[in-house]
C-alpha cells in the first residue's frame, strides 16, 4: 500500500496493515479508505461480538505496553464505554504469524491465534458537533521497541497512525489533552500551531495537563505524516513555558480564563534531563 504523497517512513505501509474497531452503528460514519489506504473488510473489528475478544485483549495489552510505565493504562471498561461505543479505534497491525518474536512475547499472543496483532492505535471520541472529536489515546510500539532493544524500523508510526485515523474519523476540529512534559507534544505540533484551551487542568489526573486543538485539513494531516511538500505557517514564540514550572502554567491558565488566547506554534525544545521548554505565542 502506498499513499499519494511522501511520508517519513513509507516502509511502514509495506510491513503493516490498517484495522478499524467500530460498532455497526458507528461504522457508516467512518472513511474506510483514508487517503486511499483501504481497511480490508476482514480487518474491521466489531467490539460487540464474541469473536473479537482476543484482538481487543491485544489492544488492551498494547495500551499497557505503551502507558503502563507512565501510570495511565486504560481499564478495559474505559475501552468499551469511552471508545468503542461512542467512537472508534484505528490503527496498524501485523498478522500474528509474521510478528517479531520479541513482540509476540511482549503481547503474550495466545498459541494458535493467527489474527492481527495491533502495533499502533488511535482512539478518539466524538464531541457535540459533527467533525469535532476529542483525541483520547495514541499508542505505538515504536518507543516500546526502542526501550526493549528490538530491531524494527517503526519510525514515524505514531504520526502515521494519528494522521490516517483523523482522516478515517472525518475529524475537522480536533481537541486533545497532554502533559507539558510529554514527548507526544512533538507529534501534535506537526499538525500546525496548537490552540491552547487550558494550561493547567485540575479536572485531570495530572494537573500539569494542557488542552490543545487545531483545525484538521488534508495539508495538516499530510504535514503530520512527514510530507516534505507541505510547509505549515509558523508564528514566532513570544515566551517559553518550562515544562516543570507549575506557577507559570497556573499564570497562563489564569490569562486563558480571563479571555486570553494562546497557541503553541512549534515543537518544544528538550532541556537537561527530562525537561522541555514549550514555545507560546498570543493570538488575537
Amino acid at each position, binding site marked *: 500500500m502506498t499513499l499519494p504523497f511522501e511520508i517519513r517512513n513509507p516502509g511502514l505501509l509495506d510491513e503493516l496493515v490498517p484495522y478499524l474497531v467500530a*460498532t455497526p*452503528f*458507528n461504522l457508516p*460514519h*467512518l472513511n474506510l479508505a483514508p487517503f486511499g489506504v483501504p481497511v480490508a473488510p476482514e480487518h474491521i473489528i466489531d*467490539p*460487540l*461480538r*464474541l469473536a*473479537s*475478544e482476543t484482538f*481487543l485483549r491485544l489492544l488492551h495489552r498494547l495500551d499497557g505496553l505503551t502507558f503502563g510505565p507512565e501510570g*495511565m493504562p*486504560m*481499564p*478495559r*471498561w*474505559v*475501552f*468499551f*464505554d*469511552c471508545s*468503542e*461505543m*461512542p*467512537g*472508534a479505534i484505528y490503527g496498524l497491525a501485523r498478522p500474528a504469524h509474521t510478528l517479531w518474536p520479541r513482540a509476540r512475547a511482549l503481547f503474550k499472543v495466545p498459541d494458535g491465534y493467527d489474527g492481527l496483532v495491533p502495533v499502533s492505535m488511535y482512539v478518539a*471520541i*466524538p*464531541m*457535540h*458537533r*459533527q467533525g469535532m472529536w*476529542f483525541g*483520547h489515546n495514541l499508542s505505538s510500539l515504536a518507543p516500546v521497541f526502542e526501550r526493549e532493544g528490538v530491531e524494527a524500523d517503526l519510525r514515524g508510526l505514531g504520526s502515521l497512525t494519528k494522521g490516517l485515523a483523523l482522516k478515517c474519523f472525518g475529524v475537522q476540529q480536533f*481537541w486533545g*489533552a497532554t502533559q507539558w512534559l510529554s514527548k507526544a507534544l512533538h507529534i501534535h505540533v506537526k499538525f500546525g500551531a496548537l490552540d491552547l*484551551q*487550558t494550561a*493547567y*487542568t*485540575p*479536572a*485531570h*489526573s*495530572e494537573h500539569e*495537563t494542557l*488542552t490543545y486543538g487545531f483545525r484538521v485539513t488534508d495539508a495538516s494531516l499530510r504535514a503530520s505524516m512527514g510530507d516534505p511538500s507541505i510547509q505549515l505557517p509558523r508564528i514566532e514564540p513570544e515566551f517559553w513555558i518550562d515544562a516543570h514550572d507549575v506557577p507559570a502554567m*497556573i499564570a497562563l*491558565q*489564569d490569562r486563558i*480564563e480571563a479571555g486570553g488566547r494562546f497557541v503553541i506554534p512549534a515543537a518544544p525544545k528538550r532541556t537537561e534531563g527530562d525537561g522541555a521548554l514549550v514555545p507560546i505565542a498570543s493570538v488575537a
Partner: protein
Amino acid sequence: MQSNYAPILQQLEPFLIAGDIREDLNLCPGGVQIPSENVFHPQHRRHAAFLAMLQLVDRLTFGPFGMEMPSWVFYDCAVMPGAVFGLGVRAHRLEEWAREAMKVPDDYEGLVPVSQFIAIPMLAGFSDPSRKAPGTWLLYTLESLNQVSPGMAPVGTLKVTCALGLRVFPIRELYAISQWRSPKLEEYVELGPLELVTAWTPAHSMPRTLSFRLQFDDIHMPGLVYAPSVHPASPPPNALLDVDSAADLQALQRDLEAGEKIYVVGKPIHHGASVRVPLYRSPGGRASGAEPLAAGGADDLTV
C-alpha cells in the same frame, strides 16, 4: 414534578458541568431551573474543589466494582465530549458524618454533589444533517451516594437525577451500559423496553455486562417519576434470564449476534439466591440463553 418527589428538590439543588456543549443543553429540565451559580466550567480552576468531590462520588460508588473513573478519564471521556448533570446539597446542610465522608474542606460552604448523570455524544447520532446537535447519546454514568450510603441523600435521588438528566440532553436515542446484577437495571427498565445490544461483553472489564438502547419516544417519563413500574408499551415477558449463569449470557449473546431482537422488559426478580430478568424475545427467535415461559407470558410469571 410530582409532589412526592418535591422534598428532594427542597433539599437538593441541580448542577451542571459543561463547556461549549452548554448551548445544546436544557438548563430548565422538567421546569427545574439550574441556578447559574451551579453551572460549572470543567476547565476553570475555581471549580476544582467541586470537581474533586464529584470524583469522590464516583470513587465511592464505582470503586467497589473495580470501575472507579480516573480523573483523566473523567476529563477526556466525560466532560470534554459530554456534560455532567446532577444534584447536590449545600455543605452547611450536611450532617457531620456526611461531611467527613465526602471530605468537605473545613472552609467550604458551596455545593456538595450527591448524584450525577453523565451523557456523551455517539458518532451514530450525526445521521440527521438538519440537526446541529447529535441525537444519539451514551448514558455514561448514573450514580447516587445513596447506593453506598443510604441517608446521604433523600430516597429517590437517583430516580429524579435520571428523569431530569434525560431532559437536559437533546436525546432521541439512548444507549447505556450496565452490569446484570446492578440495582440500577431496575431504574433503567422503567424507561421502556431495553433492546439488548450485548448480553455478554468480553470487551468490558466485567463480561457480565449488558449494553442496550432505546428510542427517546419510548422513554416513559410519567412511568419513571409518578408510578414506577414497567413501561406501558412493554410486551409481556416470554423468557427469564438467570443473570448469574455465564453460559446463559453467552448463549444469549450468540442469539443477538445471529440477529435476534431481545428486550429486557421487567425488573429483576429476586428469589432466594437467584436473580432472573424478564425478557421479551421476538417471535421466531431461538430459545437458548434463557428459560422460555409457557404461553401466556406475564401471567405465568410465578416465582
